[in-house]
């Protein structure tokens, strides 16, 4: 018992050190954002002397900041809406019929196989394709997100459904319910935990993605928050406090979101892990 207690104390100390490693970059980002240039040069690790807010007001006064914030929200929201509708719809028939039908089994392997194929291999052709279709903008971006989310989404939801017995559905069918009714009224609520997992994973991807937006969103009106901060960093590279403030503002929505949703996010990731 004493051994165990000592072990726990040791673990606690190790975890505390790790916590420090995680916290220091955030601490530096936050304190630096409230400093003037001169203040930063006089002490990088020191707390700011006062609440210097000019960095923030400079960023917030830029119209492109608000436009890109709105774009990020829009792209993430529409993308997730598409995922929440399309992925369960596609997964449900596959999960229920791949046991007895070759066609559905083929569809399953066809749609899941893409997990192993890295994005670079289709990156350039797909950009050309979107260009020739005339939708190399947010519309194309959303189509790529939905197409790209298919593999993992179908994989996770089908895996989850394999452990759900189908008595409920059969009873509903016997009572004369249509397939659509069974899906919307019975199966969708049943699938909800794994749908949350899929939405969290894709939400983090859509919100934080840099690669695809950098290839598709060329005008300031189209840009997302990630692109805004990248360009901002390029423009004001020498003004460290200003850049820190911009980075802080850019990650703030996610920080707040995580603060309130952490239980769901971690729970969702763990649920997906066990099913996958």
């Amino acid at each position, binding site marked *: 018992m004493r051994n165990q207690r000592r072990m726990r104390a040791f673990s606690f100390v190790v975890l505390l050190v790790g916590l420090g490693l995680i916290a220091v970059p955030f601490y530096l980002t936050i304190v630096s954002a409230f400093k003037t240039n001169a203040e930063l040069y006089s002490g990088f690790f020191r707390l700011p002397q006062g609440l210097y807010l000019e960095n923030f007001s400079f960023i917030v006064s830029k119209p492109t900041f608000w436009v890109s914030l709105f774009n990020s929200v829009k792209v993430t929201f529409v993308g997730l809406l598409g995922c929440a509708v399309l992925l369960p719809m596609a997964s449900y028939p596959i999960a229920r019929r791949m046991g007895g039908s070759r066609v559905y089994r083929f569809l399953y392997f066809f749609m899941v196989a893409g997990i192993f194929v*890295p994005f670079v291999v289709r990156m*350039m052709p797909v950009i050309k394709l979107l260009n020739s279709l005339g939708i190399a903008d947010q519309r194309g971006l959303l189509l790529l997100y939905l197409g790209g989310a298919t593999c993992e989404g*179908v994989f996770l939801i089908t895996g989850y459904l394999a452990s759900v017995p189908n008595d409920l559905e059969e009873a509903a069918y016997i009572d004369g319910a*249509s397939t659509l009714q069974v899906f919307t009224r019975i199966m969708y609520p049943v699938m909800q935990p794994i749908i949350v997992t899929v939405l969290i994973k894709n939400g983090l991807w859509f919100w*934080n993605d*840099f690669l695809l937006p950098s290839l598709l969103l060329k005008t300031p009106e189209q840009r997302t928050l990630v692109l805004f901060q*990248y360009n901002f960093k390029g423009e004001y590279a020498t003004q460290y406090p200003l850049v820190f403030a911009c980075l802080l503002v850019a990650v703030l929505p996610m920080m707040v979101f995580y603060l309130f949703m952490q239980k769901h996010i971690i729970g969702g990731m763990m649920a997906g892990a066990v099913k996958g």
Partner: protein
Amino acid sequence: MKPRKGNPTLERDVTHALFIMPSLLLYTLFSVIPILIGVYYSMTNWNGITRAYKFIGLRNYVKMLGDARFLRAVSFNSRYVIMYMLCLLVLCVALGLLLNQKVRWRGFFRSAYFFPAVIGMLSCGLIFRQIFGYGFATLGDLLGVEALKSNILADPDLAIFGVLFVNLWQGLAIPTVLILAGLQTIPMELNESASLDGASGAQIFRHITMPFLLPTISMILVLALKEGLMIYDYILALTDGGPAGRTESLTMLIMKLGFNEQKFSLAIAESILLAIVIIMVSVVQINITNRKKVYG
């Protein structure tokens, strides 16, 4: 199971087909067909802009194998991915075990350790670029330590470790949660009866914990391989491939060749080779862990 009246099976067939159609179309159009187009272009000499190009067979593939820049990127990227996978594996299993114990503040620790995952790779890279570029220099001045004074990202030999550190700092979060989830599938009784029988901690780890964790570890390694070989955001944010191209990753090289240097078909050929390597290593890796799982 038999339908009661009318012809509901036809109705079900049609609805099911309609359900699958949108995802199948999106996936085929934007994921599968571009790969096929890519394979075709990789055998041409198209620069991505002009109308005229001709079929040159496998010449792009031969060309890149003799290209010093490509080989340098391969060398950097393979060293990087091996270090990344090893460090990630050791650290995430260790962290998972630590966070699975009944330590004080466990819930808080779990939340805190997952937190880096919600921040984008680019933001994370930019934050660390600022810190490496400025913070360490001032710290070095303050403490009078010569080694800290220089920016690690500007050192041709050390830059790779700077990138690795940032990648791990953020990349550990999700694998750790996956390990935690894996650890919770181990029945409590198994551990308890083993320790009652006098098994040491190391024995329990080897004969009970590891076999249960293998499927999770296998998944983590497959994801880490893909992530490590495709690393782009961090490098762009941290070093932009420098100093002197020493940290130019394959994806970054492919992007530069394809979009800036008008070597479209060569870039695609390189990306296809990269994909083949990733798929082959993943398959081998999954086979190995599956075999271990059966006998383990």
